């Protein structure tokens, strides 16, 4: 009898948790429906369209130097820019969280501006500022540095839009860092530099990686703010999203979707790698 009684609960469907609060089935169904309609269906359509090009079509598109260069620029500059944004974001988040200074709240609110600004507005503003006759561009031009209409311009725009992600992901963790940790390190004889790199930085790494991934994803997909400052010279400063738009305007839908699929797969791989590093560093933090 007791055997039968013990075996009975095991027959329940495996994902069905008899929690005290109802609504699991409804919530999961709702979530899956929306995920399917909004994310998976369009992606499937994209793959379907691209597949009509066949392997040969993919190979031809990939071997086009213009496409290659656009992908290189998009992924390369996005990577460098998101790393730069993450490092800058760490410092900004630190300053905003750890110190109290006049105007702190205003600056804190301004961090979100790139989120809210229409990207075209940001692009025009950046282009006007850094153009050879712009406020910052003119003195830089006199020094012989041209920062617009080349990958540097793309970099500037991508850092600008990636910064809020980098700041906002690490900020709550910095707020959580106990001051006692620094004091403990100091009483043990650690210098300020040792404390920063050995005690304070490691717990922030997972969150900083999240920020990095978000900033990278945003930079990769960014169009509006980049195209004004990039100059869009094929083979120099043309980004992959722009190439997609160009292909679309030439009614080359298949070509456009092929580039899109390549971008999608590469982006997925990059994010997967960042996630793996994150999981590994979280395990190393010992708090899972």
């Amino acid at each position, binding site marked *: 009898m007791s055997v039968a009684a013990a075996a009975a609960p095991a027959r329940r469907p495996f994902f069905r948790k008899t929690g005290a609060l109802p609504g699991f089935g409804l919530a999961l169904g709702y979530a899956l429906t929306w995920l399917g309609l909004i994310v998976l269906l369009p992606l499937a359509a994209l793959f379907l369209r691209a597949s009509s090009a066949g392997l040969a079509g993919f190979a031809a598109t990939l071997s086009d130097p213009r496409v290659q260069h656009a992908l290189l620029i998009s992924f390369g500059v996005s990577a460098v820019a998101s790393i730069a944004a993450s490092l800058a974001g760490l410092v900004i988040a630190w300053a905003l969280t750890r110190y109290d200074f006049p105007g702190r709240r205003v600056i804190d609110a301004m961090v979100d501006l790139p989120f809210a600004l229409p990207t075209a507005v940001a692009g025009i503003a950046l282009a006007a500022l850094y153009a050879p006759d712009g406020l910052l561009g003119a003195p830089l031009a006199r020094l012989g540095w041209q920062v617009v209409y080349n990958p540097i311009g793309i970099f500037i725009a991508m850092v600008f839009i990636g910064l809020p992600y980098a700041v906002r992901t690490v900020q709550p963790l910095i707020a959580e860092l106990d001051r006692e*940790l620094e004091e403990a*390190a100091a*009483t*043990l*004889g*650690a210098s300020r530099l040792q404390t920063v790199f*050995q005690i304070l930085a490691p717990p922030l790494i997972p969150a900083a990686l999240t920020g990095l991934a978000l900033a990278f994803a945003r930079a990769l997909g960014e169009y509006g703010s980049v195209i004004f400052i990039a100059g869009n010279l094929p083979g120099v400063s043309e980004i992959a999203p722009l190439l997609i738009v160009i292909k679309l305007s030439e009614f080359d839908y298949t070509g456009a979707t092929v580039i899109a699929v390549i971008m999608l797969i590469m982006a997925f791989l990059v994010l997967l790698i960042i996630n793996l590093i994150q999981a590994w560093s979280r395990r*190393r933090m*010992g708090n899972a």
Partner: protein
Amino acid sequence: MDIRVTDLAKEFGGARALRGVSLHVRSGELMALLGPSGSGKTTLLRIIAGLETAERGSVFFGDTDATRLSVQQRHVGFVFQHYALFRHMTVADNIAYGLRVRRRSERPSRAAISARVEELLALMQLEGYGGRHPAQLSGGQKQRVALARALAVDPRVLLLDEPFGALDAKVRKDLRAWLRQIHAQTGHTTVFVTHDQDEALELADRVAILNSGRIEQVGAPDEIHEQPASAFVASFVGDAARVPVRVLGGKAMFGETVLEAPGQAMADGAGWLWLRPYDLRLTGKGAAVVAGEPAGKLDGVIVGVRRTANGRRVEVRLQDLDVIVEADAPAGLSCGHGEQVSLAVLGGRIFPDNAK
């Protein structure tokens, strides 16, 4: 190494945390800083460690003037209430940290460091825990790791800020006995902050009582308990009730009753007599005076009886007064609620009225 602080003063945004504190901690001594919250005890400890700077006064470790030394240069072991362990490091790495951050010329060899870690893990009864992360330890274990980490660098003095404050009662008691033992083995001059008087009285060689930024009394636990130097100490340490008295010619008058027992010299005037339960002997109403016992008695009515582990504690409301004193009832004496009783005053301390 002894610690000597003189005339320390510290202010936090207008609030005075310390008002001229001087204290001498003898070499090898285990001293408790005891006081209510806001009394400045933690501030004092942090100034000794160099985690805060005083506006005035100086700190000496032996003959070394440490007042201007940085935290790193002071070479103290500090244990925090919430452990402050480095979560991303294993237990062994936590303990070794103070040795690993040293300059290459002063750093022990890798083998020496791991030998030291093993030795400390053994001392802390944490053998085999070196590879774990702090998140996998209980509170008591975490605090022992924190202590091992502080001891690893062989500090001049050991400072503990409410070391058992975050632990539950049972673990607290175990760790107390165990800290005593570690102290006996290592012999570091140790100062710990606590608001728990049992902890202070049980553990420390000497106790310093702090109240609103001043030291009220420094002394051995017995001294603090039996000869409180101020009304604050009398009320803060142990159970005590106060009875208003008039002092006349060296004698305390309670109404028309003369209480002779508290034989302290005191100027005439109003005062308070502080009575601990053992200062009073409960007798039936109108019982004969025992030979050798003072004649002064307080009359009252029993308003409560509590059974304790060791006897009966009786609460007596004194006649004509809204004062309740506590006394231990001798076995065999009936003490029902509302019964009339007398209390013989065997001891107690008198402080002038303005002291509280």
